[in-house]
């Protein structure tokens, strides 16, 4: 009889299904996974070290680059940590704008996840549909911050600026017929809020489309049902948060359980799974998109009714207006101080977490009273999820590893930091 040996297979770091730069060392017996050893750190940029060397405001941009598919949520955790330490009041309008963009970000993230997860498992077309909607939301990012991805829009004390009165439109060029152009600009005639409102109206129909494509799809179910089951107690033990924990049936959501910003004033539900397999997590995330849509609608309505300031009045933290600087010396000094030295935080430490689309994203900030953080630890949800790869993949087939990577919603920007 021939000798039977286990294979060691190197998966990645250059593999389209590895969601970036994941290197997995898989020990397989035939096609069954015996052991999975993820090697991470190939995208390590030393964010935590870099943040230590810069004044607080200069590091907001680094937060965008952590989980680069849910940029503004990362910023939210960081600015909230600073605000907690300064005991800074944030205007309500800014809070609503933040919540609205957090939820837009959640949809952005889940659409990205849905598209790539589908692609990994073999459903090509869902990717195209998901990216169709993503484009619109990224346009919202661009309209509000000037950048399509790395927004740096949230600032300690509020947000960088108020929502624009006019949604940018597509321009005429030689390749677009006038009729086409008109159709493209149809929902861009009003303000950004009108555009978002229009998106909110259309989006449930689009989710229905994804639903039709996948939810009862036989192949989709064969690839997802009963793959990577994690029980509720095990999920807690492994430190899971977010959809990974809710997929296992634990109704835990920081937006409900430890509300921040204005989540306590909004109505939404928390979906939970039953069996804790990949299919449940898929259903949870789909429902989260619907709930996010609900929240966005409530925010849009509130924001229409309540104009006001979007930045704190504390001149030690918030920059003065350009016009004030022209004839007020105090403002000029504040501006100069703020953009050279920055501001100092009181001595102490704080851990600030938000419900990020992937789970609990936390910033552990230690200040020694200086204008730079003494230590910043970024608690990335993906890190713990990926750590459970071995446990989740054991006993499954090689092709299921790809499903599990997909269902964990892994992004290396935050894991490797």
């Amino acid at each position, binding site marked *: 009889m021939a000798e039977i040996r286990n294979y060691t297979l190197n998966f990645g770091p250059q593999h389209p299904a590895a969601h970036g730069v994941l290197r997995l060392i898989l020990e397989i017996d035939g096609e069954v996974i015996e052991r999975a050893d993820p090697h991470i750190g190939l995208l390590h940029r030393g964010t935590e070290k870099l943040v230590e060397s810069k004044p607080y405001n200069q590091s907001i941009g680094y937060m965008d680059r952590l989980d680069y598919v849910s940029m503004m949520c990362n910023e939210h955790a960081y600015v909230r940590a600073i605000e907690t330490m300064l005991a800074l009041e944030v205007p309500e309008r800014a809070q609503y704008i933040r919540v609205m963009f957090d939820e837009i970000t959640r949809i952005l993230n889940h659409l990205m996840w849905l598209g790539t997860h589908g692609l990994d498992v073999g459903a090509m077309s869902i990717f195209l549909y998901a990216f169709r909607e993503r484009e619109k939301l990224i346009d919202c990012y661009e309209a509000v911050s000037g950048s399509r991805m790395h927004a740096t829009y949230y600032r300690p004390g509020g947000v960088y600026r108020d929502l624009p009165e006019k949604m940018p439109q597509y321009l005429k060029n030689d390749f677009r017929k006038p009729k086409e152009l008109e159709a493209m600009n149809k929902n861009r005639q009003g303000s950004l809020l009108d555009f978002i409102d229009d998106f909110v109206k259309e989006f449930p129909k689009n989710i229905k489309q994804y639903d039709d494509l996948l939810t009862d799809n036989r192949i989709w179910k064969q690839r997802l049902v009963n793959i990577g089951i994690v029980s509720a107690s095990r999920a807690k033990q492994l*430190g899971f948060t977010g959809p990974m924990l809710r997929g296992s049936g634990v109704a835990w959501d920081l937006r409900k359980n430890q509300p921040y910003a204005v989540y306590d004033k909004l109505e939404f539900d928390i979906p939970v799974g039953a069996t804790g397999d990949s299919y449940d997590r898929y259903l949870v995330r789909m429902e989260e998109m619907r709930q996010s849509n609900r929240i966005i609608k409530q925010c849009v309505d509130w924001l229409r009714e309540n104009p006001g300031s979007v930045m704190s009045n504390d001149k030690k933290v918030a920059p003065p207006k350009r016009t004030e600087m022209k004839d007020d010396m105090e403002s000029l000094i504040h501006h100069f101080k703020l953009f050279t030295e920055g501001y100092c935080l009181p001595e102490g430490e704080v851990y600030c977490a938000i419900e990020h689309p992937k789970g609990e994203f936390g910033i552990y900030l230690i200040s020694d009273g200086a204008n730079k953080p003494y230590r910043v*630890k970024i608690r990335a949800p993906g890190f713990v999820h990926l750590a459970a790869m071995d446990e989740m993949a054991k006993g499954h087939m090689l092709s299921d590893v790809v499903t599990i990577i997909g269902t964990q919603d892994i992004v290396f920007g935050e894991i490797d930091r």
Partner: protein
Amino acid sequence: MQDLKEQLIEEFGEGNIIDAFGELTLTVDVSDIIKSCLKLRDTFLFDTLVDLCGVDYLTYGQSDWDANASSSGFGRGREACGGEDRHEKRFAVAYHLLSVNKNYRLRVKAFVDEAQPMIETVTGIWAAADWYEREAFDLFGILFENHTDLRRILTDYGFVGHPLRKDFPMIGEVEMRYDEELGRVVYEPVSIEPNVNVPKVIRE
């Protein structure tokens, strides 16, 4: 949270609890870490370890220059000055615990000596600690006793040093390039100069 605070004071003593910014911090002795963590998990129902990380207190409270400098003006001096050592031990391990059942949080801190940066692993109590401890070992060189797989995690294969320690230079120690003649990648000492654009200042 007040209930929790009272219970913790009863269990661990008032001197070990700090209540600041609406968060509770419990300081425990390195030798007691397992005992305390088991108690926290089983009687206080902290079922989730949210985060574990190392902290290096080497330059804590030291600014790059004296904020009340004289009229002779500032130099570009980057000599750290004006800090008394506020921490007896150089390193700390910070654990962030969460109770999903009871809906409260707690931070546990254990200070570790520089000469012997060792602490017992908590992987047996919360499985999530596995990679976090590897990370703390990688970035700070804190050793976790009885950890079954204490390898580096974030840095490169064959990396030397612990990059998040305060005495590790921001620019790193080596740089890498492909050598045409040798036909392989070579490591050389860094050629760039350290640069501080904004000095660290501590103001009241």
